[in-house]
């Protein structure tokens, strides 16, 4: 470890003691980048970045972690002089070490012209959106060549060779071929590599990577992170910005945690993650679902804890929505206007009709998972909750001559969660659509509650549609834009005949206050939107809920609360989840059993813990290895 101890204040600077032995890689007396008391304000508004200080040593990876709106991207733009004319940027020191080691460059006083000499040449920038970060109409090689054309005197031929070399260095296979392709011809991972190739074209001493792996699949993400690490080993310092602690933890030797525009905690990565000092850091670390056993809550004072205190549920098949104990949301987050956690347990808390397992029993499978996946319909372990609610048998679906789903079979028991993981394009969503009978299978069939489902004509299916619900990644687009939350929920509850009290009960169940009913979904936060989607899906009291990437576009702490909510609702209502996600950490936290999907086929299945502990298929092992997790940090972050 370097000489840094747990710095508590946001104002304090991380001292880099010269010559001190550091696990964090080479450190020099003069930092490459020195930021002191940086403040960014737009117009006359409140500062978006407030008094932050940090340094980056040459060849070091420094992580900046925070959720949306914490000011991390504005910080990176300030370092590139890209905050725009409306912004007011101030700092007591903002310097970049000059290349020749004969002084420093004061970034505060650069002219627009001087900035052009810094950007690209001295500081490389890898933007987040790999699709919009590239001109769709130009071959990507030209895009990279631009930097060389502007800053070097290479001839066109030399430039082409250099571009190929850069692409190869960025891990792009067949660089000559790729250089003449346009962005839409490349996959997301390749586009990100192209952007990195462009950013390192002039061998900048500092690379700013703003969410470089967001929206990429786990294995692609691992590849990009390895690439960044290789660049660092070759001497490039990296400022890695991400909302994802696990991403930052894999590369950065030191991290700073940002909240509301200020750095609340900074220090060596291992120390910050192992022994977080600030409550917000603790909350962030706890919210990472990886390695958190099934049934534990991810957010502080979570709703998940509540059902244990509630009395044994009345097994009456009451149609009124059960009142869940309210989640106590963190006060720091404006996500919710939820009531207090001290809500008295309502006697109306009921199990789903025909369901006999109470919360106590429903929790049990978490401790001792019974194998339910892959056709083993045996409900051997739990006697009460063993009813199979959903069974897929040999499902296949072709698009053209490509099998999107190929011979997929599984069973799902009442009150349990079956995780379905796979990378994008593996056919997960097609499985969801087949199960929801939105797409007809070419082969095989789906049974719902022991009855034929996919084989029926839509007319006969309709009465039972209320037995199976769905929530989606993009909750907002699943709401009619004209309707208010209240209208949406009462439509779902009982064909528009439900009263206002039903709506507030539904809202209450998902931890939203009743006055949300009057709002339109687009004015709610992402987390609130997903809560409304959950309330709507549960309104008809379904037996099965298909969750298609329900938390993939949410910040990690919001994600944690949504996952906790789903967990608690499952225990309370006995609803079974088919939980589709690309995030192995989420899948592990949520699922009793797991299906691993690749190219339309189930390559591995079984109880979640045994799949994680002892993956049989090479693909599963690959997937598991690629998933960034916090636990790796306990080892030195840069063994690879």
């Amino acid at each position, binding site marked *: 470890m370097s000489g840094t101890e747990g710095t508590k204040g946001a104002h304090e600077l991380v001292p880099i003691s010269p010559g001190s032995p550091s696990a964090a890689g080479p450190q020099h007396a003069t930092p490459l980048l020195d930021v002191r008391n940086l403040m960014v304000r737009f117009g006359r508004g409140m500062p978006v970045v407030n008094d932050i200080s940090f340094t980056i040593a040459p060849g070091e990876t420094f992580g900046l972690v925070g959720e949306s709106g914490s000011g991390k991207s504005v910080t990176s733009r300030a370092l590139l002089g890209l905050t725009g004319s409306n912004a007011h940027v101030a700092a007591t020191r903002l310097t970049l070490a000059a290349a020749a080691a004969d002084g420093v460059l004061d970034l505060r006083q650069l002219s627009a012209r001087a900035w052009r000499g810094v950007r690209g040449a001295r500081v490389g920038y890898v933007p987040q959106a790999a699709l919009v970060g590239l001109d769709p109409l130009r071959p990507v090689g030209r895009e990279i060549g631009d930097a060389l054309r502007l800053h070097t005197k290479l001839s066109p031929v030399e430039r082409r060779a250099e571009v190929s070399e850069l692409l190869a260095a960025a891990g792009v296979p067949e660089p000559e071929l790729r250089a003449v392709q346009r962005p839409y011809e490349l996959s997301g991972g390749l586009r990100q590599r192209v952007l990195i190739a462009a950013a390192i074209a002039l061998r900048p001493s500092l690379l700013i990577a703003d969410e470089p792996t967001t929206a990429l699949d786990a294995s692609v993400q691992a590849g990009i992170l390895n690439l960044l690490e290789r660049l660092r080993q070759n001497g490039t310092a990296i400022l890695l910005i991400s909302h994802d602690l696990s991403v930052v933890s894999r590369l950065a030797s030191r991290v700073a945690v940002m909240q509301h525009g200020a750095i609340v905690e900074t220090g060596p990565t291992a120390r910050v993650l192992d022994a977080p000092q600030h409550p917000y850091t603790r909350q962030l670390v706890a919210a990472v679902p990886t390695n958190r056993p099934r049934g534990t809550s991810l957010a502080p004072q979570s709703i998940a804890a509540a059902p244990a205190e509630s009395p044994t549920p009345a097994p009456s098949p009451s149609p009124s929505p059960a009142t869940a104990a309210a989640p106590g949301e963190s006060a720091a987050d404006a996500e919710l206007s939820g009531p207090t956690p001290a809500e008295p347990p309502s006697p109306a808390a009921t199990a789903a009709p025909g369901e006999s397992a109470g919360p106590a029993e429903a929790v049990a499978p978490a401790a001792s998972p019974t194998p339910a996946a892959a056709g083993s319909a045996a409900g051997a372990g739990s006697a009460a909750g063993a009813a199979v609610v959903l069974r897929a048998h040999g499902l296949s679906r072709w698009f053209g001559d490509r099998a999107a789903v190929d011979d997929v079979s599984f069973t799902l028991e009442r009150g349990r969660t079956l995780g379905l993981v796979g990378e994008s394009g593996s056919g997960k969503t097609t499985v969801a659509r087949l199960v929801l009978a939105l797409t007809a299978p070419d082969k095989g069939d789906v049974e719902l509650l022991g009855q034929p489902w996919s084989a029926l004509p839509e007319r006969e299916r309709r009465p039972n549609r209320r037995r199976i619900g769905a929530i989606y990644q993009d909750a907002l687009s699943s709401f009619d834009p004209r309707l208010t939350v209240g209208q949406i929920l009462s*439509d779902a509850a009982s064909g528009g005949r439900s009263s206002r009290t039903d709506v507030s009960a539904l809202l209450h169940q998902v931890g939203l206050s009743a006055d949300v009913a009057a709002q339109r979904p687009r004015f709610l936060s992402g987390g609130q939107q997903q809560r409304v989607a959950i309330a709507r899906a549960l309104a008809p009291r379904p037996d099965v809920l298909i969750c298609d990437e329900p938390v993939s576009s949410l910040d990690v702490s919001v994600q944690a609360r949504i996952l906790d909510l789903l967990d608690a609702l499952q225990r309370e209502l006995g609803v079974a989840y088919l939980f589709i996600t690309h995030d192995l950490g989420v899948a592990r936290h949520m699922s009793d059993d797991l299906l691993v999907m690749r190219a339309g086929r189930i390559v591995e299945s079984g109880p979640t813990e045994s799949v994680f502990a002892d993956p049989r298929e090479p693909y599963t092992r690959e997937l598991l290895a690629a998933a960034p997790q916090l636990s790796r940090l306990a080892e030195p972050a840069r063994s690879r």
Partner: protein
Amino acid sequence: MTVVISLAVLVFLVVAAVWPDLIAPGDPLAIHPLDAFQPPSAQHLFGTDESGRDIFTRVIHGTRASLLIGVTATAIGIGLGLIFGLLAGLGPRWLDFGTTRLLEVMFAFPGLLLALLFIVIYGPGIVTSTIAVGLSTAPGYARLIRSQTLQVRDAPYLEAALVLGRGSVFRLTRHLLPNVAGTLFVIATLGVGQSIVWASALSYLGLGAVPPSPEWGAMLSAGRTYITSFWWMTFFPGLFIVLSAAAATLLGRGLQQRKRSS
């Protein structure tokens, strides 16, 4: 601001259409040969025509016919557009194909030509010219409604309603039609202005309202002969055509912007 002004103008025109005597109490058809060709004055605000009829009275009394033609023609156009648009947007693929080709054929004719064709067949008059204008605007509405329908039909929220077990009637009436109609209302406001101009154009050509009746287009046509010497005979009916069309159009644009920004 423009919305407020347009609204004020439209309110004035509606009052003129419903209670013309409130604004101009005279008889629009009363002839005073001795007062012919009087320039605008305190007595005759807009002057008089070749038979000594008060132009102000005639213009105000003509509002009813013009507005009625504009609104009715738009209603006919949108009604037909809805039928064809929804058929194409919701029907099977062959129906969509057939309807779209038919619309393309209609589009090949300029709108006014289509209206003329209809009048040639069914003879001139207010009713036929109204239907003619409605018919000629229908293809535009139909195409718009079709594309809106296609867009809404595949929206995730309609699928969500299906997953919730909602029948097709509910999905159509609760989600699809209102969302299609939302854009339609704005377009209709714009359409009224256009229909008024077209109806006036047909009257001007002598294919709509017949001369003695106080209709703007017909008045324009009558004043055409004297345009060099007695400008007020054409100017004031023309002014009202422009005013009503502009008010409807600006209101429509204002609503469009408000919808977009909300």
